[in-house]
């Protein structure tokens, strides 16, 4: 009995061990249209990044500009504009349409014959109690810690550029109070730099800040049509 048992075991082990490490990963047969755009409140011109991304196992080297792309941006009031190519930037299109705080917008059309569409609502009412004023003073050679208190309708996350705002050094936060930390510029000379404060909607947050599975709101392709409202301040290092 023991000899027979041993032989059976050995045979089965050798047979199945040879099954190896195959991974059956199906591959799509076409490139994926990717659309990336952020509609900034109170602007009249929006740039849209459009690329065609080949499948992972395609020998093509990487994303390329689409051969054809015809897209339209429209608002709730019925204004509709066709996006125009940006000169010398094959993968970029520009829409000329007023982006109103709280407005809802739709991007649709076709990229290399593939219909795509996306919708988003732009945040509104970005109220910043802190930092107060348009100019913020910071000490040279020190990491600036600037308290913030803000809120915005339709925004799920906030960010500062440059700077980190998360309690653990994250580039964005959902908190409405906290502190922005900004590293000092090189050198000892007083200088000033722009500071952009962002209030962004969920579409943009979920696309930009999830590395494992960014969420797309572009139907027919992938990417984001996000909305944000930006406050501009000046950081004065002295």
């Amino acid at each position, binding site marked *: *009995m023991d000899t027979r048992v041993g032989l059976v075991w050995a045979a089965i082990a050798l047979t199945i061990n040879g099954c190896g*490490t195959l991974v059956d990963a199906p591959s*799509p047969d076409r490139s994926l249209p990717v659309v*990336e755009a952020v509609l900034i409140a109170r602007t009249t011109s929006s740039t849209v990044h459009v690329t065609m991304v080949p499948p*992972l196992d395609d020998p093509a080297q990487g994303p390329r500009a689409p051969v054809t792309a015809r897209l339209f941006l429209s608002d709730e009031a019925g204004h509709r504009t066709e996006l125009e190519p940006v000169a010398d930037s094959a993968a970029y299109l520009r829409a000329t349409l007023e982006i109103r705080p709280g407005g809802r917008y739709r991007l649709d059309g076709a990229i290399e014959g593939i219909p795509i569409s996306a919708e988003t609502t732009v945040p509104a009412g970005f109220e910043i109690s802190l930092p107060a004023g348009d100019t913020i003073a910071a000490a040279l050679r020190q990491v600036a810690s600037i308290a913030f208190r803000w809120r915005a309708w339709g925004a799920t996350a906030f960010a500062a550029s440059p700077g980190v705002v998360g309690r653990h050094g994250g580039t964005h936060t959902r908190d409405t109070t906290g502190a922005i930390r900004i590293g000092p510029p090189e050198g000892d000379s007083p200088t000033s730099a722009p500071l952009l404060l962002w209030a962004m909607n969920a579409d*943009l947050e*979920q696309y930009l800040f999830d590395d494992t*599975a960014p969420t797309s709101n572009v139907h027919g392709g992938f990417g984001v049509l996000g909305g944000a409202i930006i406050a501009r301040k000046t950081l004065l290092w002295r």
Partner: protein
Amino acid sequence: MTRSALVAIGVATLGVRGAPAQTITGTVVAKGASTPIAGARIIATHSRLAAFTNHAGRFDITLTVLPDTLTIAAIGWVPDTVVVSDTTGGSLVIALRSAPIIISDLIVSGARVPTLDLTNHGRWRMPIEAARAVPPAVETDVYRALALIPAVSFTSPLSARPMVRGYDAQEVTTRIDGFEALNLFHLGRAFASFPADATDEIVVSTAPYAAAQAGSIAGILDVAGRTGPIDRFQAGLGLSFGSLSGYAGGGNRQARYFFAGRFLHLKALGLIPGIDVPYHFEDIYGSVAIGPPERPRGRITAFATQDRAGANSTSFLNWGNVLLGGRWLATKPGRTEVELSVSGASFREDGDDVPSVHAVPADLSNRFTRVTVTADLATAWPLTRVDAGLSLGWRDIVNRIADADPDRASVPRFPTTSLRLARPELGAHAMVTRRAGRLTLAGGIRLDAAGTTTSLAPRLSGRLGIGRDMRVSAGLGRTSRLYHLVGDARSEPDFDFLDFWLSAGPGIPTAVADHATLELNLERGSTVARLGGYASHGSAIGELEPEHDQGTARFFRFGESRTRGLEAQLAYRGTRQHPASFSLTYVYGKSERNWGEGWVRWAQDRRHQGRAFGQLARGRLTVFGAMDAATGMPLTPVVYAFGRGIPGADPRGSTVSLADSVPVYGPENGATTSGTLRVDAGATYRLVGRPGSAKRFHLVIGISIINVLAGPVAPFGLGEGAGRYATDRKGRWLPYRRLFNLPTVPTLTLRAEL
């Protein structure tokens, strides 16, 4: 098989075929310990009838021919034969000796002759001796040893979460001595919190189980605790890398007690990959059996366990279970039995900054309390049996889970959960079993209600004897659950400690599954075979939205389930002169889900699994081994990858990495990982005492090695897969990672018994 002398009963001998039916009662116990043996088969050779013992070891069987010969057999015990001349002398007490080689007996599920008890359809009983024949990782575990049972599968070799026939472990209910208990797991759900030393047997009942049972979609795991021996004291100590355990028991004819405890010592931590946290656990179990062993009147069960993990007050996870239950036989011996029971069980879990799904740490505070009173009635005639029961309960659930640090997370899909549910529950069932020749049929119905939610579940089953060696049985029925216990089936081998409890009611449907099963049992000489098929269709099956979802903001999802499969077991069992056993199992399974966009493979669906177990005893030495081979698990593939490029200003500012890579996932579970193969081996040597010897003191040393081949158990993903993450051919980061590299795990155990 041994043949014992007449054990009972009286003096008169009828010896007349066709005489009026005589009902005989009795109890089957462990020799020298008086522990009741549940599920033992009693076959009356001349009357061609059979019965099974209940959880207290009791049975009754109606004989139509006297004298008759009763054959008593139970998994893990040496069969015995008793000649019965008449039925006037009272109850039989049949003491069985423990059998050292029992793996193959696990697959025997039916009686050779017609019986009025069909509950063995789709059920496996595993005595703890069988569990010890599975080469242990760290120590014998009552859950992981269920690998012996083809209906049970695990996500990884170190997982103790038993999945049953294509359904997650969350859909399986666990009971201790028949009383429901929740989350019987230690750290990482790698160990059961019920100690092996306290275990008498583990029973797996797959759906559709008997109408007397409820609360699970897929199946029920019953862990039966031990009972103390009669008129002597018995104690033991066990030592492993994982824990120190001990037990003691004793008693007399009026009452028998048993206590067991287990404590973690820190040596275990180095064997669990990736774990470096202060941690300890303690388990205690106690039971008291009241009344004479041939007819125990009652039993009291107490169980408690606690786990404490974490370095400080800001990052910790504490959880524990307390269970207290009692049963009482309210009737005197006779055709009808009424058993009353009362139980209370509470699961408690508190944690701060606990690692969880989607890399989001969580704060949690959970309570799950259930108090139940039940009354079960069983009455039997020679050809008919009626079972009925009523249970009243109160379930109190507190489920609070929140992001420990909302701004750290990037995914806004993690919901803050705050459920407080307290509501009465009602359960009622009735089942009638009728035998006609070789055919036995049972039909029943079960009603469950909680709050405003009700569920009606019909159950049908039948068994047909074909020839002397073959039985065919079938089951058809519905199972339901009035609350959802939702976890992440994909989390392992990573630790995920979050359980979301959602009560069925407005907005959340009741989980329901319809099952059909068919079994063929064949027993000829030393060869035993079992062939089973199953299929099910469920609705409102809950799950966490997978991490790779890129289109919705849902956190939970509910959908349909569809399973079907085939289980084949073939076993050889040796003789007393040549004790050995060998079992081969093949399982084909298909488990799918439909979340609203068509059927996809379930996350833990493995199409083909093969397992082999062997055991060989020579004197004081017993060697055993196991092999597990399976095809791969489903995988949601990354089909595109690119770097994000927001035109104009980017809110990520200067922190945008050049290595930024966006994975775009293909169809859910549209790819398959590689298959796995694992071989384990072990041996025990009795330093003092021999199996079945009269010596009071036994000392057993055991050694086992998990993953003898030392190869990767789950080579995974594209690219090299050697690190935590993989890259594609262009060097871009992809969120594939190897599930785990299981090293060769040696285990040394020492058991002393007095």
